[in-house]
């Protein structure tokens, strides 16, 4: 009988690994290597005014969201009303990176749907997107006051994910300072 124990253990271990693999949620979701590290530096012309720039330093001193968006991205339209709510509640400054878009289309989007952003950097070539490890809009980064990335959200941001993933981090960070 004992000769069956080892194979049985191996098979059960294999099944356990496969089960874990199946339940990991979205298999396309990649963890950001920037979590716990300083956000990449950037400097971009703003969407509204090409002569004005928005840069990393503008974000420091406070928790801030960096939201990567584009007009060609359906998920961005989905999350836009929630970003507007966040902006109205004045809970956190939201900075945008308008990724691989055209200026007229992005400006029309803002004019029609509203502007939740303190400023949106206009990343026409996608260089800043690559520096941030962006692979699919929308993506939302949470930065603390020191400019460290503490969370990254993939896909449309909503109230549920905000309260579950973002608020505890912000509250914990706020209390520690």
């Amino acid at each position, binding site marked *: 009988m004992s000769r069956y124990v080892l194979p049985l253990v191996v098979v059960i271990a294999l099944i356990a690994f496969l089960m874990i693999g199946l339940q990991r949620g979205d298999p*396309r979701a*990649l*963890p*950001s*290597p920037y979590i716990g590290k300083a956000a*990449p530096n950037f400097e971009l012309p703003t969407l509204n005014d090409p002569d004005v720039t928005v840069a990393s330093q503008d974000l420091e001193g406070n928790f801030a969201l960096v939201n990567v968006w584009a007009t060609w991205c359906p998920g961005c339209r989905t999350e836009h009303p929630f970003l507007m709510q966040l902006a109205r509640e004045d809970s956190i400054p939201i900075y945008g990176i308008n990724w*691989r878009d055209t200026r007229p289309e992005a400006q029309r989007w803002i004019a029609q749907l509203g502007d939740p952003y303190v400023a949106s950097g206009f990343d026409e*070539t*996608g*260089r800043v*997107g*690559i*520096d*941030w*490890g962006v*692979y*699919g809009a929308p993506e939302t980064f949470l930065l603390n006051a020191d400019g460290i990335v503490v969370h990254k959200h993939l896909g449309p941001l909503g109230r549920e994910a905000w309260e579950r993933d973002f608020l505890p981090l912000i509250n914990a960070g706020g209390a520690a300072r």
Partner: protein
Amino acid sequence: MLAVAMLASAPVAAIDSSQAFDDPVLQARYEKLISEVRCLKCQNQSIKDSNVFLAADLRREIRRLISEGKTDTEIADFLVTRYGEFALYRPRTTGKTLILWIAPFLLVLFGGFAMFRVIRHRMTLPLDDSGVAEGSSE
């Protein structure tokens, strides 16, 4: 008719078919690199085989890095810093990816050991049929 259609569609299917570098050595490095970088948007393709703009952007970045004289290791570091180890089809032998490299050898060792045990056990069995019948009824 079919031939004409195929001819017409061939240039559409080709991705970045033009030479990126005049120097054949650089061109070869470039082609090898882009075939080993995963397209993060279309995850089972390399950026060599994909036409989504993110793949095109990454190819452009790699062309820039090569022409700036960066080594293959530096270019791999560039990608891993931004996208994590997953971006490379050939994971580097460091820390977390070590298990990927040693697991096959461990499995072969384990299998070899198991086979050795079975064979050695069988060698102790008598060779004639009556012995086999006895052995199988243990």
